[in-house]
Protein backbone atom coordinates (compact mmCIF):
# COMPACT_ATOMS: atom_id res chain seq x y z
CA UNK A 1 0.00 0.00 0.00
CA UNK A 2 3.07 2.25 -0.07
CA UNK A 3 3.05 2.75 3.70
CA UNK A 4 6.19 2.50 5.81
CA UNK A 5 6.63 -0.02 8.59
CA UNK A 6 6.08 1.47 12.02
CA UNK A 7 7.14 0.13 15.41
CA UNK A 8 6.27 0.85 19.00
CA UNK A 9 9.64 1.48 20.66
CA UNK A 10 8.74 2.77 24.12
CA UNK A 11 5.86 3.07 26.56
CA UNK A 12 5.05 4.70 29.88
CA UNK A 13 2.09 5.37 32.13
CA UNK A 14 0.99 6.85 35.44
CA UNK A 15 -0.83 5.01 38.18
CA UNK A 16 -4.56 4.93 37.64
CA UNK A 17 -6.27 6.44 40.67
CA UNK A 18 -9.81 7.48 41.48
CA UNK A 19 -8.70 11.06 42.05
CA UNK A 20 -5.21 12.33 41.32
CA UNK A 21 -3.61 15.45 42.71
CA UNK A 22 -1.94 15.91 39.30
CA UNK A 23 -3.51 18.13 36.67
CA UNK A 24 -4.09 16.73 33.18
CA UNK A 25 -0.82 18.39 32.15
CA UNK A 26 1.14 16.70 34.92
CA UNK A 27 -0.45 13.30 34.24
CA UNK A 28 0.47 13.71 30.59
CA UNK A 29 4.04 14.69 31.46
CA UNK A 30 4.67 11.71 33.73
CA UNK A 31 3.46 9.24 31.12
CA UNK A 32 5.20 10.94 28.20
CA UNK A 33 8.49 11.36 30.07
CA UNK A 34 8.49 7.72 31.12
CA UNK A 35 7.80 6.63 27.54
CA UNK A 36 10.63 8.77 26.15
CA UNK A 37 13.04 7.69 28.90
CA UNK A 38 12.19 4.04 28.21
CA UNK A 39 13.73 4.33 24.74
CA UNK A 40 16.30 7.01 25.68
CA UNK A 41 14.81 9.66 23.45
CA UNK A 42 14.71 13.38 24.17
CA UNK A 43 11.93 15.79 23.30
CA UNK A 44 13.95 17.15 20.39
CA UNK A 45 13.90 13.66 18.82
CA UNK A 46 10.10 13.77 18.60
CA UNK A 47 8.77 15.01 15.25
CA UNK A 48 5.15 15.32 16.23
CA UNK A 49 2.66 14.62 18.99
CA UNK A 50 -0.73 12.95 18.88
CA UNK A 51 -3.02 13.14 21.88
CA UNK A 52 -6.11 11.08 22.52
CA UNK A 53 -8.61 12.05 25.17
CA UNK A 54 -12.21 11.01 25.25
CA UNK A 55 -14.47 13.71 26.67
CA UNK A 56 -13.67 17.35 27.52
CA UNK A 57 -16.56 17.32 29.96
CA UNK A 58 -14.64 15.07 32.38
CA UNK A 59 -11.51 17.17 32.84
CA UNK A 60 -13.54 20.36 32.66
CA UNK A 61 -11.39 22.00 30.00
CA UNK A 62 -12.62 22.47 26.49
CA UNK A 63 -9.92 21.94 23.90
CA UNK A 64 -8.29 19.81 26.56
CA UNK A 65 -5.78 18.40 24.11
CA UNK A 66 -4.40 21.87 23.54
CA UNK A 67 -4.60 22.58 27.27
CA UNK A 68 -2.39 19.66 28.20
CA UNK A 69 -0.26 19.85 25.06
CA UNK A 70 2.88 21.14 26.79
CA UNK A 71 2.72 18.20 29.18
CA UNK A 72 2.55 15.92 26.17
CA UNK A 73 5.67 17.44 24.66
CA UNK A 74 3.70 19.45 22.16
CA UNK A 75 5.41 22.82 22.58
CA UNK A 76 6.04 24.22 19.11
CA UNK A 77 5.53 20.86 17.46
CA UNK A 78 2.98 19.52 14.99
CA UNK A 79 0.20 18.58 17.36
CA UNK A 80 -3.25 17.06 17.01
CA UNK A 81 -5.81 15.70 19.44
CA UNK A 82 -8.52 13.20 18.53
CA UNK A 83 -11.42 11.58 20.28
CA UNK A 84 -13.58 8.53 19.58
CA UNK A 85 -15.01 8.24 23.05
CA UNK A 86 -14.08 4.98 24.71
CA UNK A 87 -12.40 3.74 21.52
CA UNK A 88 -9.90 6.60 21.74
CA UNK A 89 -6.85 4.98 23.39
CA UNK A 90 -6.44 2.32 20.70
CA UNK A 91 -7.19 4.87 18.00
CA UNK A 92 -4.39 6.99 19.49
CA UNK A 93 -1.94 4.30 18.39
CA UNK A 94 -3.59 4.22 14.95
CA UNK A 95 -3.50 8.00 14.61
CA UNK A 96 0.18 8.04 15.55
CA UNK A 97 0.79 5.17 13.14
CA UNK A 98 -0.73 7.22 10.31
CA UNK A 99 1.74 10.03 10.90
CA UNK A 100 4.73 7.72 10.68
CA UNK A 101 3.49 5.24 8.05
CA UNK A 102 2.77 8.11 5.69
CA UNK A 103 6.31 9.36 5.93
CA UNK A 104 5.32 12.62 7.62
CA UNK A 105 7.14 11.86 10.90
CA UNK A 106 9.93 9.51 11.84
CA UNK A 107 9.16 9.63 15.54
CA UNK A 108 5.70 10.27 16.94
CA UNK A 109 4.84 10.57 20.62
CA UNK A 110 1.34 9.27 21.34
CA UNK A 111 -0.30 10.22 24.59
CA UNK A 112 -3.70 9.24 25.94
CA UNK A 113 -5.05 10.99 29.04
CA UNK A 114 -8.23 11.26 31.03
CA UNK A 115 -8.96 13.04 34.29
CA UNK A 116 -12.51 12.19 35.25
CA UNK A 117 -12.51 13.32 38.86
CA UNK A 118 -13.19 17.07 38.44
CA UNK A 119 -16.66 16.31 37.08
CA UNK A 120 -19.24 16.70 39.85
CA UNK A 121 -21.35 15.21 41.29
CA UNK A 122 -19.98 12.16 39.52
CA UNK A 123 -18.07 11.65 36.25
CA UNK A 124 -20.94 9.56 35.01
CA UNK A 125 -22.90 12.80 34.76
CA UNK A 126 -20.72 13.88 31.87
CA UNK A 127 -22.12 11.01 29.81
CA UNK A 128 -25.43 12.81 29.91
CA UNK A 129 -24.02 15.20 27.35
CA UNK A 130 -23.47 12.40 24.85
CA UNK A 131 -27.07 11.39 24.38
CA UNK A 132 -29.87 12.92 22.35
CA UNK A 133 -30.91 16.12 24.09
CA UNK A 134 -34.46 16.09 22.83
CA UNK A 135 -35.64 12.51 22.81
CA UNK A 136 -33.48 10.78 25.36
CA UNK A 137 -32.04 13.06 28.03
CA UNK A 138 -35.49 14.26 29.20
CA UNK A 139 -36.23 10.63 30.12
CA UNK A 140 -33.05 10.51 32.17
CA UNK A 141 -31.04 8.32 29.82
CA UNK A 142 -27.51 7.58 31.02
CA UNK A 143 -24.78 5.10 30.25
CA UNK A 144 -25.99 2.62 32.84
CA UNK A 145 -29.35 2.51 31.07
CA UNK A 146 -27.95 1.50 27.71
CA UNK A 147 -25.06 -0.88 28.33
CA UNK A 148 -27.05 -3.17 30.65
CA UNK A 149 -29.58 -3.53 27.83
CA UNK A 150 -26.75 -4.74 25.62
CA UNK A 151 -25.71 -7.15 28.35
CA UNK A 152 -29.27 -8.43 28.75
CA UNK A 153 -29.71 -9.19 25.05
CA UNK A 154 -26.19 -10.57 24.70
CA UNK A 155 -26.64 -13.02 27.55
CA UNK A 156 -30.02 -14.19 26.28
CA UNK A 157 -28.80 -14.58 22.70
CA UNK A 158 -25.85 -16.74 23.82
CA UNK A 159 -27.46 -18.51 26.73
CA UNK A 160 -25.00 -17.07 29.27
CA UNK A 161 -25.81 -16.72 32.96
CA UNK A 162 -24.53 -13.99 35.27
CA UNK A 163 -22.02 -16.46 36.74
CA UNK A 164 -20.52 -17.18 33.32
CA UNK A 165 -19.91 -13.52 32.71
CA UNK A 166 -18.80 -12.70 36.25
CA UNK A 167 -15.73 -14.87 35.72
CA UNK A 168 -14.26 -12.08 33.61
CA UNK A 169 -14.11 -9.83 36.69
CA UNK A 170 -12.52 -12.60 38.74
CA UNK A 171 -9.80 -13.18 36.13
CA UNK A 172 -9.07 -9.55 35.39
CA UNK A 173 -9.04 -8.28 38.94
CA UNK A 174 -6.69 -11.09 39.87
CA UNK A 175 -4.41 -10.30 36.92
CA UNK A 176 -4.39 -6.66 38.00
CA UNK A 177 -2.82 -7.54 41.35
CA UNK A 178 0.43 -7.81 39.38
CA UNK A 179 0.11 -4.46 37.62
CA UNK A 180 1.94 -1.50 39.18
CA UNK A 181 -0.69 1.01 38.00
CA UNK A 182 -3.74 -0.96 39.12
CA UNK A 183 -6.53 0.62 41.12
CA UNK A 184 -8.93 -2.29 41.44
CA UNK A 185 -6.88 -5.45 41.69
CA UNK A 186 -8.30 -7.98 44.14
CA UNK A 187 -9.06 -11.64 44.71
CA UNK A 188 -12.74 -12.30 44.12
CA UNK A 189 -15.01 -15.25 43.59
CA UNK A 190 -17.81 -15.50 41.07
CA UNK A 191 -20.25 -15.35 43.98
CA UNK A 192 -18.73 -12.05 45.16
CA UNK A 193 -19.48 -10.52 41.78
CA UNK A 194 -22.97 -11.93 41.45
CA UNK A 195 -23.84 -10.93 45.00
CA UNK A 196 -22.64 -7.35 44.61
CA UNK A 197 -25.19 -4.55 44.46
CA UNK A 198 -27.46 -4.58 41.40
CA UNK A 199 -26.77 -1.27 39.70
CA UNK A 200 -28.85 -1.73 36.60
CA UNK A 201 -29.92 -5.31 36.15
CA UNK A 202 -28.30 -7.42 34.81
CA UNK A 203 -25.24 -5.35 35.72
CA UNK A 204 -23.86 -5.70 39.25
CA UNK A 205 -21.44 -3.24 40.82
CA UNK A 206 -18.45 -5.59 40.38
CA UNK A 207 -19.32 -6.01 36.69
CA UNK A 208 -18.20 -2.44 36.02
CA UNK A 209 -14.76 -0.81 35.84
CA UNK A 210 -14.08 2.32 37.89
CA UNK A 211 -13.76 5.91 36.65
CA UNK A 212 -10.24 7.22 37.21
CA UNK A 213 -7.49 9.71 36.43
CA UNK A 214 -4.43 8.59 34.45
CA UNK A 215 -2.29 8.82 31.34
CA UNK A 216 -0.44 6.40 29.08
CA UNK A 217 2.05 7.10 26.33
CA UNK A 218 3.79 5.16 23.57
CA UNK A 219 6.54 6.16 21.18
CA UNK A 220 6.21 5.17 17.53
CA UNK A 221 9.10 5.18 15.07
CA UNK A 222 9.68 4.41 11.43
CA UNK A 223 11.48 1.18 10.60
CA UNK A 224 14.88 2.77 10.06
CA UNK A 225 14.76 4.82 13.24
CA UNK A 226 13.19 2.02 15.28
CA UNK A 227 16.05 -0.32 14.48
CA UNK A 228 18.53 2.25 15.73
CA UNK A 229 16.63 2.84 18.97
CA UNK A 230 15.94 -0.72 20.05
CA UNK A 231 16.73 -4.31 19.21
CA UNK A 232 13.16 -5.24 20.12
CA UNK A 233 10.86 -3.09 17.96
CA UNK A 234 7.22 -4.15 18.16
CA UNK A 235 5.67 -3.66 14.73
CA UNK A 236 2.23 -2.23 14.14
CA UNK A 237 1.12 -4.96 11.76
CA UNK A 238 -2.54 -4.13 11.40
CA UNK A 239 -4.93 -1.29 12.20
CA UNK A 240 -8.68 -1.16 11.90
CA UNK A 241 -11.42 1.21 12.88
CA UNK A 242 -15.13 1.43 12.18
CA UNK A 243 -18.15 3.43 13.21
CA UNK A 244 -21.76 2.22 13.25
CA UNK A 245 -24.96 4.27 13.23
CA UNK A 246 -25.51 6.74 16.02
CA UNK A 247 -29.09 5.47 16.33
CA UNK A 248 -28.32 2.87 18.95
CA UNK A 249 -31.94 1.74 19.16
CA UNK A 250 -31.77 0.43 15.61
CA UNK A 251 -28.56 -1.52 16.13
CA UNK A 252 -28.26 -5.15 17.03
CA UNK A 253 -27.28 -4.51 20.64
CA UNK A 254 -26.21 -8.12 21.16
CA UNK A 255 -23.50 -8.12 18.49
CA UNK A 256 -21.13 -5.22 17.76
CA UNK A 257 -20.78 -5.58 14.02
CA UNK A 258 -18.56 -2.48 13.90
CA UNK A 259 -15.97 -4.29 16.07
CA UNK A 260 -15.97 -7.17 13.59
CA UNK A 261 -15.50 -4.76 10.71
CA UNK A 262 -12.62 -3.03 12.46
CA UNK A 263 -11.07 -6.40 13.23
CA UNK A 264 -11.35 -7.60 9.64
CA UNK A 265 -9.72 -4.40 8.43
CA UNK A 266 -6.80 -5.02 10.79
CA UNK A 267 -6.53 -8.75 10.02
CA UNK A 268 -6.43 -8.06 6.30
CA UNK A 269 -3.65 -5.53 6.71
CA UNK A 270 -1.70 -7.92 8.93
CA UNK A 271 -2.28 -10.85 6.60
CA UNK A 272 -4.01 -12.84 9.33
CA UNK A 273 -6.35 -15.54 8.03
CA UNK A 274 -7.05 -17.55 11.20
CA UNK A 275 -7.19 -15.12 14.11
CA UNK A 276 -7.91 -17.82 16.70
CA UNK A 277 -4.61 -19.46 15.83
CA UNK A 278 -2.49 -16.48 14.87
CA UNK A 279 -3.30 -14.06 17.72
CA UNK A 280 -1.37 -15.16 20.77
CA UNK A 281 -2.58 -12.61 23.33
CA UNK A 282 -5.56 -10.31 23.30
CA UNK A 283 -6.53 -7.18 25.18
CA UNK A 284 -10.18 -6.62 24.21
CA UNK A 285 -12.03 -3.74 25.82
CA UNK A 286 -13.55 -4.71 29.17
CA UNK A 287 -15.33 -1.75 30.81
CA UNK A 288 -18.07 -4.23 31.76
CA UNK A 289 -17.54 -7.95 32.27
CA UNK A 290 -19.72 -9.11 29.38
CA UNK A 291 -17.91 -6.75 27.01
CA UNK A 292 -14.74 -8.84 27.13
CA UNK A 293 -16.66 -11.89 25.88
CA UNK A 294 -18.78 -9.95 23.40
CA UNK A 295 -15.71 -8.26 21.96
CA UNK A 296 -13.76 -11.53 21.73
CA UNK A 297 -16.56 -12.99 19.65
CA UNK A 298 -16.84 -9.92 17.43
CA UNK A 299 -13.04 -9.95 17.03
CA UNK A 300 -13.46 -13.52 15.73
CA UNK A 301 -11.17 -14.72 18.53
CA UNK A 302 -13.92 -16.97 19.86
CA UNK A 303 -16.91 -18.48 18.08
CA UNK A 304 -20.19 -16.78 18.88
CA UNK A 305 -21.75 -18.29 21.96
CA UNK A 306 -18.50 -20.00 22.94
CA UNK A 307 -16.46 -17.35 24.70
CA UNK A 308 -17.93 -17.99 28.15
CA UNK A 309 -17.10 -21.67 27.90
CA UNK A 310 -13.51 -20.97 26.90
CA UNK A 311 -13.25 -18.56 29.82
CA UNK A 312 -14.51 -21.22 32.22
CA UNK A 313 -12.02 -23.71 30.75
CA UNK A 314 -9.27 -21.20 31.61
CA UNK A 315 -8.23 -20.78 27.97
CA UNK A 316 -8.06 -17.02 28.61
CA UNK A 317 -5.99 -17.20 31.80
CA UNK A 318 -2.44 -15.90 31.67
CA UNK A 319 -1.13 -19.43 31.31
CA UNK A 320 -3.94 -20.50 29.00
CA UNK A 321 -3.90 -21.06 25.26
CA UNK A 322 -4.84 -17.44 24.49
CA UNK A 323 -4.35 -15.09 27.43
CA UNK A 324 -6.98 -12.35 27.47
CA UNK A 325 -6.42 -9.11 29.39
CA UNK A 326 -3.22 -10.27 31.10
CA UNK A 327 -2.87 -6.65 32.27
CA UNK A 328 -5.98 -6.90 34.39
CA UNK A 329 -7.92 -4.81 31.91
CA UNK A 330 -10.16 -1.91 32.76
CA UNK A 331 -11.90 -3.99 35.40
CA UNK A 332 -8.67 -4.47 37.31
CA UNK A 333 -6.37 -1.60 36.43
CA UNK A 334 -9.04 1.10 36.22
CA UNK A 335 -10.78 3.11 33.55
CA UNK A 336 -9.48 6.61 32.83
CA UNK A 337 -11.04 6.25 29.46
CA UNK A 338 -8.47 7.10 26.79
CA UNK A 339 -5.49 6.20 28.98
CA UNK A 340 -7.01 2.81 29.78
CA UNK A 341 -7.33 1.71 26.16
CA UNK A 342 -3.78 2.81 25.32
CA UNK A 343 -2.69 0.89 28.43
CA UNK A 344 -3.90 -2.21 26.62
CA UNK A 345 -1.68 -1.41 23.63
CA UNK A 346 1.22 -0.81 26.03
CA UNK A 347 0.52 -4.15 27.73
CA UNK A 348 0.72 -6.03 24.43
CA UNK A 349 3.98 -4.15 23.74
CA UNK A 350 5.50 -5.18 27.09
CA UNK A 351 4.23 -8.75 26.81
CA UNK A 352 5.68 -9.28 23.34
CA UNK A 353 9.05 -7.98 24.54
CA UNK A 354 9.00 -10.22 27.60
CA UNK A 355 8.96 -7.15 29.88
CA UNK A 356 5.67 -7.67 31.70
CA UNK A 357 7.27 -8.92 34.91
CA UNK A 358 4.94 -10.94 37.07
CA UNK A 359 2.19 -10.58 34.46
CA UNK A 360 4.33 -12.12 31.72
CA UNK A 361 2.49 -14.77 29.76
CA UNK A 362 4.65 -17.80 29.03
CA UNK A 363 5.48 -19.18 25.62
CA UNK A 364 7.07 -16.16 23.88
CA UNK A 365 3.97 -14.66 22.30
CA UNK A 366 4.72 -13.05 18.95
CA UNK A 367 1.44 -11.43 17.92
CA UNK A 368 -1.02 -9.53 20.07
CA UNK A 369 -4.21 -7.55 19.60
CA UNK A 370 -5.65 -4.59 21.48
CA UNK A 371 -9.19 -3.33 20.94
CA UNK A 372 -11.36 -0.56 22.26
CA UNK A 373 -15.00 0.47 21.95
CA UNK A 374 -16.86 3.67 22.51
CA UNK A 375 -18.33 6.90 21.26
CA UNK A 376 -22.11 6.54 21.28
CA UNK A 377 -21.15 2.90 21.83
CA UNK A 378 -20.71 2.50 18.13
CA UNK A 379 -16.96 2.76 17.46
CA UNK A 380 -14.54 -0.12 17.23
CA UNK A 381 -10.78 0.31 17.06
CA UNK A 382 -8.23 -2.50 16.69
CA UNK A 383 -4.44 -2.65 16.62
CA UNK A 384 -2.35 -5.75 15.93
CA UNK A 385 1.24 -5.76 17.17
CA UNK A 386 3.93 -8.23 16.24
CA UNK A 387 7.48 -8.74 17.37
Amino acid sequence: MGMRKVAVVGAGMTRFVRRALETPKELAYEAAKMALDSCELKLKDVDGVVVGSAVDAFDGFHMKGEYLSDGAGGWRKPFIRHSVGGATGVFSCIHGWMHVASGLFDVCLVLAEEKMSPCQPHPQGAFLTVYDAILERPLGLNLTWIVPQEMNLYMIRNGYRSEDVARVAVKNKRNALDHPAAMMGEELTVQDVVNSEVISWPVHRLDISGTADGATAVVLASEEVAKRITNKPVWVDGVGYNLDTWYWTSRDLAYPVYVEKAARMAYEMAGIKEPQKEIHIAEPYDPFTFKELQNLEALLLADQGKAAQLLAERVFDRDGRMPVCPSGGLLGVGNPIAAAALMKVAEVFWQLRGEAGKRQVPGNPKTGLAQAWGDMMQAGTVVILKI
Partner: protein
Amino acid sequence: MSLLERISKNIQLRSWEGEFPVQYLYTFGVAGERFFRQIKENAKILGARCPQCQITFVPPSLYCERCFERTEDWVEVGHKGEVYTFTVCYRGMDGLPKNPPSVLALVKMLGAEGGFVHRIGEIDPQEIKIGMKVEAVFKPQAQRKGSILDIQYFRPAEK
Protein backbone atom coordinates in the same frame (compact mmCIF):
# COMPACT_ATOMS: atom_id res chain seq x y z
CA MET B 1 -33.67 18.08 -3.83
CA SER B 2 -32.51 20.46 -1.14
CA LEU B 3 -32.61 19.44 2.48
CA LEU B 4 -33.22 22.97 3.68
CA GLU B 5 -36.77 24.23 4.05
CA ARG B 6 -37.83 27.77 4.46
CA ILE B 7 -40.05 28.41 7.47
CA SER B 8 -42.08 31.56 7.10
CA LYS B 9 -43.99 31.54 10.37
CA ASN B 10 -41.75 31.86 13.38
CA ILE B 11 -44.16 29.94 15.58
CA GLN B 12 -43.12 26.93 13.54
CA LEU B 13 -39.54 27.27 14.76
CA ARG B 14 -38.81 24.59 17.21
CA SER B 15 -36.01 24.32 19.66
CA TRP B 16 -35.48 22.25 22.74
CA GLU B 17 -33.93 23.85 25.77
CA GLY B 18 -31.65 22.21 28.21
CA GLU B 19 -28.39 22.55 30.05
CA PHE B 20 -25.29 20.68 31.08
CA PRO B 21 -25.93 19.98 34.74
CA VAL B 22 -22.39 19.02 35.70
CA GLN B 23 -20.07 21.15 37.85
CA TYR B 24 -16.33 21.06 38.40
CA LEU B 25 -13.99 20.71 41.32
CA TYR B 26 -10.42 21.25 40.20
CA THR B 27 -7.30 20.49 42.19
CA PHE B 28 -4.21 22.45 41.31
CA GLY B 29 -1.76 19.66 40.66
CA VAL B 30 1.53 18.83 42.28
CA ALA B 31 3.13 22.13 41.22
CA GLY B 32 0.01 24.20 41.70
CA GLU B 33 -0.65 22.88 45.20
CA ARG B 34 2.77 24.09 46.33
CA PHE B 35 2.41 27.42 44.49
CA PHE B 36 -0.97 28.27 46.00
CA ARG B 37 0.03 27.10 49.50
CA GLN B 38 2.81 29.68 49.50
CA ILE B 39 0.44 32.36 48.26
CA LYS B 40 -2.10 31.46 50.93
CA GLU B 41 0.21 31.05 53.88
CA ASN B 42 3.10 33.37 53.15
CA ALA B 43 1.98 35.73 50.38
CA LYS B 44 4.95 34.46 48.39
CA ILE B 45 4.96 34.05 44.63
CA LEU B 46 7.08 31.14 43.47
CA GLY B 47 8.51 30.18 40.13
CA ALA B 48 10.15 26.98 38.93
CA ARG B 49 13.45 27.11 37.14
CA CYS B 50 14.71 24.94 34.30
CA PRO B 51 18.46 24.76 34.71
CA GLN B 52 18.97 23.65 31.10
CA CYS B 53 16.94 26.36 29.39
CA GLN B 54 17.70 28.96 32.09
CA ILE B 55 14.04 29.96 32.31
CA THR B 56 11.95 30.53 35.42
CA PHE B 57 8.33 29.62 34.84
CA VAL B 58 5.59 31.53 36.58
CA PRO B 59 3.17 29.96 37.49
CA PRO B 60 5.60 27.14 38.26
CA SER B 61 5.34 23.95 36.29
CA LEU B 62 6.53 20.47 37.25
CA TYR B 63 8.48 20.31 34.01
CA CYS B 64 10.02 22.53 31.37
CA GLU B 65 7.83 22.50 28.29
CA ARG B 66 10.82 23.23 26.08
CA CYS B 67 13.30 20.52 27.00
CA PHE B 68 10.94 18.25 28.99
CA GLU B 69 13.22 17.99 32.02
CA ARG B 70 11.86 18.30 35.56
CA THR B 71 12.17 21.73 37.14
CA GLU B 72 13.67 20.94 40.52
CA ASP B 73 14.64 24.48 41.53
CA TRP B 74 11.89 26.60 42.95
CA VAL B 75 12.57 30.27 43.56
CA GLU B 76 10.74 33.25 45.00
CA VAL B 77 10.09 35.82 42.32
CA GLY B 78 9.00 38.62 44.61
CA HIS B 79 5.91 40.73 44.13
CA LYS B 80 7.00 43.01 41.32
CA GLY B 81 6.13 42.70 37.70
CA GLU B 82 5.80 44.62 34.47
CA VAL B 83 2.71 45.22 32.35
CA TYR B 84 3.28 43.22 29.17
CA THR B 85 -0.05 44.21 27.68
CA PHE B 86 -3.40 45.41 28.97
CA THR B 87 -6.99 46.16 28.14
CA VAL B 88 -9.67 48.33 29.69
CA CYS B 89 -13.09 46.74 29.96
CA TYR B 90 -16.09 48.99 29.65
CA ARG B 91 -18.66 46.22 29.72
CA GLY B 92 -19.07 43.28 32.03
CA MET B 93 -19.74 39.63 31.20
CA ASP B 94 -23.41 40.42 31.42
CA GLY B 95 -23.12 43.05 28.71
CA LEU B 96 -23.92 45.93 31.07
CA PRO B 97 -21.67 48.99 31.34
CA LYS B 98 -18.95 48.94 33.98
CA ASN B 99 -18.45 52.04 35.99
CA PRO B 100 -15.62 52.49 36.68
CA PRO B 101 -14.22 50.41 33.83
CA SER B 102 -11.84 47.66 34.89
CA VAL B 103 -8.23 47.45 33.88
CA LEU B 104 -6.86 44.00 33.11
CA ALA B 105 -3.26 43.28 32.31
CA LEU B 106 -0.89 40.47 31.58
CA VAL B 107 1.72 41.06 34.24
CA LYS B 108 5.10 39.43 33.69
CA MET B 109 6.84 38.86 36.97
CA LEU B 110 10.34 40.32 37.00
CA GLY B 111 13.01 37.75 36.31
CA ALA B 112 10.57 35.14 35.08
CA GLU B 113 8.96 33.80 31.95
CA GLY B 114 5.23 34.09 32.06
CA GLY B 115 3.00 35.80 34.57
CA PHE B 116 -0.62 36.44 35.36
CA VAL B 117 -3.65 37.97 33.80
CA HIS B 118 -4.97 40.03 36.65
CA ARG B 119 -6.67 43.26 37.60
CA ILE B 120 -4.79 46.50 37.93
CA GLY B 121 -6.08 48.58 40.82
CA GLU B 122 -5.38 51.97 42.36
CA ILE B 123 -5.01 53.41 38.87
CA ASP B 124 -6.82 55.78 36.56
CA PRO B 125 -7.59 53.75 33.43
CA GLN B 126 -6.08 56.54 31.33
CA GLU B 127 -2.70 55.99 32.96
CA ILE B 128 -2.06 52.31 32.28
CA LYS B 129 0.94 51.79 30.03
CA ILE B 130 2.81 48.88 28.57
CA GLY B 131 6.02 48.49 30.51
CA MET B 132 4.57 50.01 33.69
CA LYS B 133 6.08 48.48 36.83
CA VAL B 134 3.45 47.03 39.13
CA GLU B 135 3.37 45.12 42.40
CA ALA B 136 0.97 42.56 43.84
CA VAL B 137 -1.43 43.57 46.59
CA PHE B 138 -2.44 40.58 48.70
CA LYS B 139 -5.53 40.12 50.78
CA PRO B 140 -4.92 39.82 54.52
CA GLN B 141 -3.91 36.27 55.44
CA ALA B 142 -7.19 35.48 57.16
CA GLN B 143 -8.99 36.07 53.88
CA ARG B 144 -6.64 34.09 51.68
CA LYS B 145 -7.94 30.74 50.47
CA GLY B 146 -5.25 29.48 48.13
CA SER B 147 -6.55 31.12 44.96
CA ILE B 148 -5.44 33.58 42.31
CA LEU B 149 -7.87 35.97 43.98
CA ASP B 150 -5.67 35.96 47.09
CA ILE B 151 -3.90 38.64 45.08
CA GLN B 152 -6.50 41.39 45.04
CA TYR B 153 -4.88 43.24 42.19
CA PHE B 154 -1.57 44.69 41.03
CA ARG B 155 -0.96 48.37 41.55
CA PRO B 156 1.59 50.76 40.06
CA ALA B 157 4.86 50.25 41.93
CA GLU B 158 6.98 53.01 43.35
CA LYS B 159 10.14 53.36 41.32
